[in-house]
């Protein structure tokens, strides 16, 4: 069964077991229309492989980049995406919503 909750967390554990450093991104807040609900997970490993999603694909690239940095530094980071974002053309949300994402390394 595809368990949307368990799947990214299981992948984290698999990567960890094979000696890879990993991070977890979680949607912690949304305003307006947003493609994935609060609580959605994106798991990332040090090679940039990922599982799950925090949007319909609009912001995954930036979140993965932030996850790789969090893996390096060990510090969690809060990200904000929306139409008012400076990088709107690059990673903005076509749906017009705003998303807050929390990114943490697994230690």
């Amino acid at each position, binding site marked *: *069964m595809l368990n949307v909750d368990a799947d990214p*967390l299981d992948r984290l554990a698999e990567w*960890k077991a094979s000696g890879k450093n990993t991070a977890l991104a979680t949607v912690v807040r949304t305003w307006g229309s947003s493609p994935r609900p609060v609580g959605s997970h994106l798991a990332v490993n040090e090679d940039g492989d990922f599982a799950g999603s925090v949007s319909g694909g609009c912001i995954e690239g930036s979140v993965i980049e932030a996850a790789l940095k969090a893996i390096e530094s060990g*510090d*969690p980071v809060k990200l904000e995406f929306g139409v008012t974002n400076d990088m709107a053309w690059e990673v903005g949300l076509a749906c017009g919503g705003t998303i807050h994402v929390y990114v*943490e390394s*697994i230690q």
Partner: protein
Amino acid sequence: MKVELLDKLRGSIAAQQACALVTDTDNGQQCLVDSDGVDGDLNLAKEYLQQATQMIADDVSGQIEQTDLFVRVYGPALRLVIVGAVHISQALAPMAQLAGFNVTVLDPRDAFVRAGRLSDVSALTDWPDEGMAKVKPDSRTAVVTLTHDPKLDDPALAAALRSDAFYIGSLGSKRTHAKRLVRLKEEGFSDLDLDRIRGPVGLDIKAKTPAEIAVSILSEIVATRRRAAA
């Protein structure tokens, strides 16, 4: 997140135990809250623990207002009980699994279960009343009967009506359904009880094939659940 906490969280999810991971998004401290108690480096004030516990009960994730605390609730999986290992079940079972349901197919006819190629779902070959007693439908369970056979459908529907199942559907034409309601009424169910049964089953999308009918049933199940929460 500490890997020990991740392992504990995955254990709770696998055991279908409702729990919440609470994160202070300002400093990264976390704790896992479940019915066993609280575990982790985040020291949660009593009022916030109460709020997190309430959010687990409501199956709602989110931030606690005026704080940096984020509560991620992991509820037990939704369940779907399909009575009848028929052609529609072969389509409905994998579709429902993709939508996040734990699926159980109930059919005492071994040959149907074998023919149904339902290798990935749990199949019970008990009689429906015994099978339903094992499954114990709750408020996170949907029940749909697909056999057309009153001997199998009726006892399953009766058990579903005595449970908190959030969705009860039964395959059959308007005529078949009307007769079914008369029989169940004779068993003592009220009109209010019987209103819970969706029949003819599924959203009206003019479905013809077994797979299309499965789409209409699954759509109705999702609509019932999401509308109730909205």
